[in-house]
């Protein structure tokens, strides 16, 4: 008796599950078409010689060997790490500091938040083109005009190999730092202000309260933001593409840009482009794994 009932329950549950999967099906097909299949296809394509959209011949790791063997790959790899390094130097602490500063204001907080967030709404491409006029080398470059008022002579910026990556990172930071600051502000808002009051009664000055209450409160968030920032900077592509075309002399060429060049830069070598994509994905996943390993350790320790 019980068995039969269980059986019909199972059937009803099966039908319900089927209907649920049917509801999710359109979304799943789209995820598969736009995200999952292309990711696997990248791996497959990286092992093939390609001609236009056809996979011609399985060639094992030859695409990888040929891509890695070229000088522009080494350069792009070093550059991509340089982008990451500079983005941490210029762009990691800035949002935290902005959040702390805006968080302390009472009057005008709304205006500061709005101003901080505004650049993030602007189209990335438009931002890059806008800033290219700022850093343009002649006497009409905006930065040169501004510095000229201070008596500093006209400079060139985007043609200097050692300046070009920090400049691109500065532009990216201008666009993103305010929005990141708002995320930190949301984290800081989680601190009960009574904690500050209690600490003050115990004689803790403002700086001590920042160090022992505010900073510990956002430490974990900062760790997450760090890995998100690394992931997003590591795939930097259109910024150097538009601003410098990877120049001067490949000094700002990024890995993703190299991928784009192989695929759409005239040679249509989709196999080699995929090899670069697979390498970038592997590095990203490795970094994420390292992060979550340390993160787990830290939370065990807490």
């Amino acid at each position, binding site marked *: 008796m019980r068995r039969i009932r269980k059986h019909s329950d199972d059937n009803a*549950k099966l039908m319900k*599950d089927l209907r*649920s999967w049917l*509801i*999710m099906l359109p*979304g799943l097909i*789209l995820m598969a078409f736009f995200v*999952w*299949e*292309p990711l696997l*296809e*990248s791996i497959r*394509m990286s092992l093939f010689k390609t001609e236009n*959209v056809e996979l011609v011949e399985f060639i094992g790791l030859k695409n990888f060997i040929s891509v890695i063997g070229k000088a522009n790959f080494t350069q792009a790899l070093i550059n991509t790490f340089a982008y990451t390094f500079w983005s941490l130097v210029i762009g990691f602490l800035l949002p935290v500091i*902005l959040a*702390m500063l805006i*968080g*302390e*204001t*009472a009057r005008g907080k709304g*205006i*500061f938040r709005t*101003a*901080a967030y*505004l*650049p993030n*709404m*602007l*189209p*990335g*491409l*438009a931002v890059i*083109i*806008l800033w290219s*006029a*700022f850093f343009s080398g002649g006497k*009409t470059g905006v930065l040169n*005009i501004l510095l*000229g008022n201070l008596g500093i002579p006209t400079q060139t910026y985007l043609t200097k190999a050692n300046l070009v990556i920090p400049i691109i990172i500065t532009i990216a930071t201008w666009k993103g730092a305010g*929005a990141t600051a*708002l*995320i930190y502000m949301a984290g800081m808002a989680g601190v009960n*202000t009574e904690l*500050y009051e209690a600490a*003050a009664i115990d004689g803790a000055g*403002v700086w001590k*309260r920042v160090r022992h*209450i505010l900073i510990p409160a956002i430490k974990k968030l900062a760790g997450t933001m760090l890995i998100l920032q690394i*992931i*997003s900077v590591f795939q930097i*592509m259109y910024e150097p*593409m538009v601003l410098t075309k990877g120049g001067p002399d490949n000094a700002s060429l990024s890995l*993703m840009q190299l*991928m784009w060049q192989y695929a*759409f830069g005239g040679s249509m070598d*989709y196999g080699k*482009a*995929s090899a670069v994509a697979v390498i970038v*994905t592997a590095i990203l*996943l490795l970094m994420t794994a390292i992060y979550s390993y340390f993160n787990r350790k830290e939370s065990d320790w807490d």
Partner: protein
Amino acid sequence: MRKKIIERTGVIRDYDLHSGSVRFWYAAIYVLCAIMAVFAVFPLVWVVLAGFKDLKEFMSSTSIMPKNFSPAQFVKTWSQLGLAKNYLNSFISVAGSVVCALLFNGLLGYGLAILKPRGYGVVKKMIMFSLLVPATISIVPLFMNIQRLGMGNSFWPLWLSYGANAMYVVLFIQFFESLPKSMIEASRIDGCSALQTFFRIVMPLSKPICAVITIFAINASWSDFLLPYLVLRGGSKQTVMVRLFVFSTEQTVNADTMMRSVVFSMIPPIILFVLFQKQLTQNNVSAGIKG
């Protein structure tokens, strides 16, 4: 005694301001915030001012201010480049993207957060994993798939790509999980099918998250240009951003025209920002996604 108008939520409390040195630093904080605000807004003001200059003035003037504020240059650029057509294309692209973003990600999120059929955990894990992998990384095979299906020079792949956004799915899941279970159960008892429950109960209850995702899908699809460039290049359906990308890579327009095109490309996002700045800057969820 004291009238407390605005609540102080920071580390510095009201009584700290009795100390002279804290007062000094507090003033310094305001100065720094003001500098930040100027720094954030100035480039925008500049590009609009630059738009008023003709080519000769743009290439020779060492002043930030234009000689005159006649809109003639903007009108000329608008009609010369035929931007009205591109604007229309962008709006079509944005509209379809928003519909797809809400419908497909919403349904997927509904399945993963509420219906939870057997095996849903695997899909949820795959969605979370997709968050880690940047979208542009597989743009090459994606483009090839689109070519193979003959969907080049069409809005369809662009629209549908917004129906496959792991971030939006996760946002839907988080919001749906916070909905009162009783209301969903009640609608099922009243005889609504799972799909009817989604459209009649779940989505109407989820207006806040739908608003956030709508704003972000509008902004993202307006600003998007890599996939749109690959799909639409050379055709009659090019969006504003695709045109701008072509200008910048092929250098087919003069520097002054370029700056005006930049201004035109920024107008809709700025209008969106002005309309929804409260939701954008005071909502933790929306602050969590960066454009």
